[in-house]
């Protein structure tokens, strides 16, 4: 079993590789000085994060706003699209399938550039609206994929049966298809929220005055002053996300077992 020992070694080294940056970040968040030399424990960077960093929090709320709205839109549109693609055959099906999956296979920068050029072309200047549209666009393919794969697992005959029993289209949709697809829809929504919170490249191209999201703001912080406030922020964000994941455990169980 030499192979398995080798893969075990690689796996644990990889874990070290993955966690080392987080560890370094967290340690220096509590360092008194700005430098990489340890001078003493201090919470000063956390204090500055919570009291003296208005712009960070503005960007934070922008991010939350965009993530919820764009994920909600993408989930609603994408789920309907997935149902359509999955249950029906129609003329433009191939087209819709191909085009809506294309954003997945292009590097982010291409999407960012083309959206920017497009928005300038149609003279759309509202930063938040641009970001909302861009995020919805790159979230749609993910929603489609996740919901389609969920629907794939199901038995067509239930719906046929419902129809045979006289159920109307909207009844089948609301009573059968959507509840069945719900775990997929929810995980699609969660993935979309995450993708949106995470995106920097596309957002930085299309954002406008005062509409920086958190990643864009973090970029402007790390490009100008390396400040341990960023470390403090990352500790807070990581802690927050882990708590959130923990709180939502019942939800995940539901998704996994349904």
């Amino acid at each position, binding site marked *: 079993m*030499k*192979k*398995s020992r*080798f*893969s*075990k070694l*690689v796996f644990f080294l*990889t874990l070290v590789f*993955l*966690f*080392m*940056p*987080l560890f*370094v*970040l967290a340690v*220096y968040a509590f360092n008194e000085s700005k*430098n*990489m030399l340890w001078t003493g424990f201090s919470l000063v960077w956390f204090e500055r994060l919570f009291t003296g960093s208005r712009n960070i929090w503005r960007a934070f709320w922008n991010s939350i706003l965009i993530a919820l709205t764009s994920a909600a839109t993408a989930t609603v*549109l994408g789920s309907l*699209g997935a*149902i*359509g*693609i999955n*249950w*029906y055959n*129609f*003329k*433009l*099906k191939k*087209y819709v399938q191909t*085009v*809506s999956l*294309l954003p997945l*296979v*292009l590097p*982010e*920068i*291409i*999407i960012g*550039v*083309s959206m920017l*050029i*497009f928005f300038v072309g149609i003279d759309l200047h509202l930063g938040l609206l641009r970001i909302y549209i861009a995020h*919805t*666009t790159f979230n*749609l393919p993910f929603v*489609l994929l996740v919901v389609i794969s969920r629907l794939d697992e199901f038995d067509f005959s239930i719906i046929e049966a419902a*129809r045979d029993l006289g159920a109307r*289209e909207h009844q089948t949709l609301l009573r059968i298809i959507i509840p069945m697809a719900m775990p997929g829809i929810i995980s699609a929504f969660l993935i979309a929220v995450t993708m949106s919170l*995470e995106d*920097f*490249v596309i957002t930085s191209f299309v954002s406008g005055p005062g509409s920086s999201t958190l990643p864009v703001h*973090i*970029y402007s912080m*790390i490009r100008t002053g*390396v400040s341990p406030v*960023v470390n403090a922020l*990352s500790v807070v*964000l*990581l802690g927050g996300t882990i708590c959130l994941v923990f709180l939502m455990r019942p939800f995940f169980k539901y998704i996994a077992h349904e």
Partner: protein
Amino acid sequence: MKKNHGLLYTLPTGLWVTVFFLVPVIIVFLYSFLDRGERGGIVWRFSLEAYRDMASPTFLHILVITMLISLAATVLTLLVALPCAYYMARSKRKSLYLFLIIIPFLTNFLIRIYAWQAILGNSGFLNNLLIRAGLIKNHIQFLYNEWAVIIVLVYSYLPYAILPLYSTIEKFDFSLLEAARDLGTSHPGSILRVMVPNIRAGIVSAVLFTFIPTFGAYAVPKLVGGGKNSFMLGNIIADEILVNRNWPFASATSILITLVTTAALGLYVLANKSAARAAQRKKT
């Protein structure tokens, strides 16, 4: 009689991606054939200048560098991801390990790059450690070169490679391996001949998931590269858009990247088809 509501269901999605994705990409394609305005932007006059500019030795140099960096990052990612996924799939604590792989990616991607800056910097964590340990006297320049870019790219896309590999390896029937060994194949030999063909789909998606984003990388080379040989096509596009305002050239470069990534995708589809055909042949 079943009514066909397919178009109705997909109409919103179809319209949305057409307007906000396909149309913009077509505009970019058109712009790449236009002339550049005096102070940037475009002039509606047909021109191949953007494509002619691509033939310059400087641009070709960046193209080659970009290719090499993204290929190196992809290969390295795969070499690390394969044993990891293998170990995870065979272990008893699968969900714990999956969770551990995902945790680092719950922090923002820029913060992770920033952490690497702090680790690899001239007065960073690693140099401090090595100097303190007496291994080196002067700092080593880790940052702002092609290796820093490759390492951080591997870091950024590793889970995207591990996850698809894991899910195919998990489905793999390991008794096949044992059978091969019983028939006298050596361990590495059995893995190569029995396992790899079976998890090919996973390998190909892992390669695509790392190659496509690294080929268009922009933030990573911007923040940990930027020196000689660590300037990539993504940076050219960003510079042309954000600084020089040479839209036709930025568009043409975007089209080039799009072609390369779709070509990669085309290979994937072909590989899938031939794999499916091979499977068919085996069955019959």
